């Protein structure tokens, strides 16, 4: 499923993110890689951007990017 579809509070492991694109290069460098565990912390008050937690810190990204990040939910 897409990262943007994850329920608030749920965790997942990243399966795949697009190979190219400025946003995804940066996301990778920020530590969002295939195999990284993420949780969706909350959405901004107007529903976009998203706040996620990974590697012990919090990061925001827009839905338009999160739509392209595929994850496997973990319970």
């Amino acid at each position: 499923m897409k990262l943007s579809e994850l329920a608030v509070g749920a965790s997942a492991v990243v399966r795949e993110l697009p190979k190219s694109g400025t946003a995804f290069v940066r996301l990778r460098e920020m530590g969002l890689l295939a195999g990284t565990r993420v949780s969706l912390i909350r959405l901004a008050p107007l529903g976009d951007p998203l706040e996620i937690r990974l590697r012990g810190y919090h990061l925001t990204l827009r839905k338009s990017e999160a739509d392209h990040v595929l994850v496997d939910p973990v319970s």
Partner: protein
Amino acid sequence: MALPPHIAGGTGSAPSRTPVYALVGNPNCGKSTLFNALTGLKQKVGNYPGVTVEKKIGTAYSQHGQPITVIDLPGAYSLAARSPDEAVTRDVLLGRRADTPQPDRILCIVDAANLERNLYLVHQILDLGRPVILVVNMMDVAIKAGLEIRIDRLEHELGIPVIACEAVNGRGVIDLKLAMSRADLPLSRHAWDIPAPIAKAVAELQASLTASDGKPPLIARAEALLLLTDQDSVRVAGSTPLSSRTAELLRGWQQRWEGEGTDWASSLVNSRYEAIGRIASAAVTQAGAAGPTLSDKIDRFATHPVWGWLTLGVLMTLLFLSIFTLAEYPMNLIDGAVAALADGVKANMAEGDFRDLITDGAIAGVGGVIIFLPQILILFFFIGLLESTGYMARAAFIMDRLMSRVGLNGKSFIPLLSSYACAIPGIMATRTIEDQKDRLVTILIAPLMSCSARLPVYLLMIAALVPGEQVPLLTKVGIMLLMYALGTFGAFGFAWLFKRTLLKGEPPLMIMELPPYRLPGLKDVMLQMFERGWLFLRRAGTVILGISIVLWFLAAYPKAPDGATAQQQLAQSFAGRAGHLLEPAIKPLGFDWQIGIGLISSFAAREVFVSTMGVVFNAEAEGDDTAPLRQALLAAKWPDGRALFTPLVCFTLMVFYVFAMQCVSTVAIVRRETNSWKWPLFQIGYLTGTAWILSLVVYQGGRALGF
């Protein structure tokens, strides 16, 4: 594993001159705090030529009193630069900048509570083959989060000195200084595997960069790795292009990999993170599961769909209240001091043009600008506070959706908001916006936010517009709000337009770290406030002084015959003649040449309009009491006997002031921040053009409707 050839052998022996250290780290890891702790007040703040990135150089002293130069580089997440700030960090470290010596040694600072991501940059820097000292900052935060960080394990894994530190309270700084003054620093023994499919490309690119681009071999290797991480990073402003041979080679490899389906960029990042993971698992143990932190609890409230807006609203109201109330007292002081200075000069110098030049030109002109300094400083203080507590990122997070409607991102919010008080700190705060085009758009629209210098003009016009002596509060507030709304909508309209036409770019990203909330170091915030205030004075000062003198000259020459009143003098001066000259252009807006003089003179600062009207119509406004001036305005007539300041004209004049770019200080700052005259000139053109067109529409429309 064998040592990689570029690192094996040799230690970095201390250079004979004063050693130069570069301080590098991710944003928010406490870098500025450490820099202040190391160098005290011995800092020089300036700019890197060609880009508007702050350049800070300071001197630290070893325990034996030896000086050590420290360059504070802008915060960066990666050497594959995404913003002009990161490009400066990359270029200084790679020795690409002619204006800054390549540092001998590198001080990497990381956030102990967030080690993995922070180590990514360190990992890239170790590739440079320079002696590195690692500072693990925020140890207190890590301990509170239940993390145990074993410094000795880190030292063992990386083979470089590692110092635990708490920059806010100075813990660890002495150890750090001891390490910094060591004559011999070991080079890192850390080795990592470049993924096999890529290793050959790295070697070829390295050779090509050495041969065709003139890079030293070690740097060439680091550059090759960067090119493969993100080839776009060479396109960031301020970068030098690749030689055609290297570019060709890079393209060749990329095509080949694309054909094979090799994901080169991510495999490089992956293997770095794998290496980091091994280091982290050796050095970090998580003692017990951490519950929600204080930061999590605050954010539940501060970014809540309801309470989040409330918090933002309350904070911003507080900000504005304090700007307008706290600033009043020092502003009166400055006003008094400037007047006293002018009086002193008047009393002690022989009468004459030179004396008038000093009092009415230089002192009055510069005084008219520094009167805003208290407001500007308070704003800088609040911006610094919002930044260092971490709330700034939350405000951007909350506002992002709204800003994205016009193609900007949440980071433009605070600069634009500050511009309601004064466009100058607002424009200087746009430095946090990474994307060049977004930053430019924000700068271009910032003056549309009605700043406090417009208030006196609005107040005078409202007083003249309403029939009674006393303006009903509701009318006053209503008209004011209308003007603020007009400017705000105008700003967003133009942002939308510019993002679609002139400054079209990729939709801005909102990939931003939300750092944990922190108690700010008041000393650091104050220091930053004074630095920025000083920067403003230095940058704008000369331009403002120059323009003030020119404006004075225009109003004082040519001389009227002896015994003429100030009013007659102004009427026949260059400024008066310029007013006449301007009249055909502004007559369709309902303005005559006398208002024209006001428009010209308020270029020094908008509120000068009020005092100019005082001279033109020979009626001084006493402080806040606009009554005598109001009477004079209402008595003013066109030559044919029609009243000049009809309610419609007053309203039109306000609309004009909402849009027109009439502030030399802003022009000076935009010139500095964009590094060219092109953008400030464009800004004057588009804003004043819009002011003229809208005023025309309002005035002629109003006339047609019978006002």
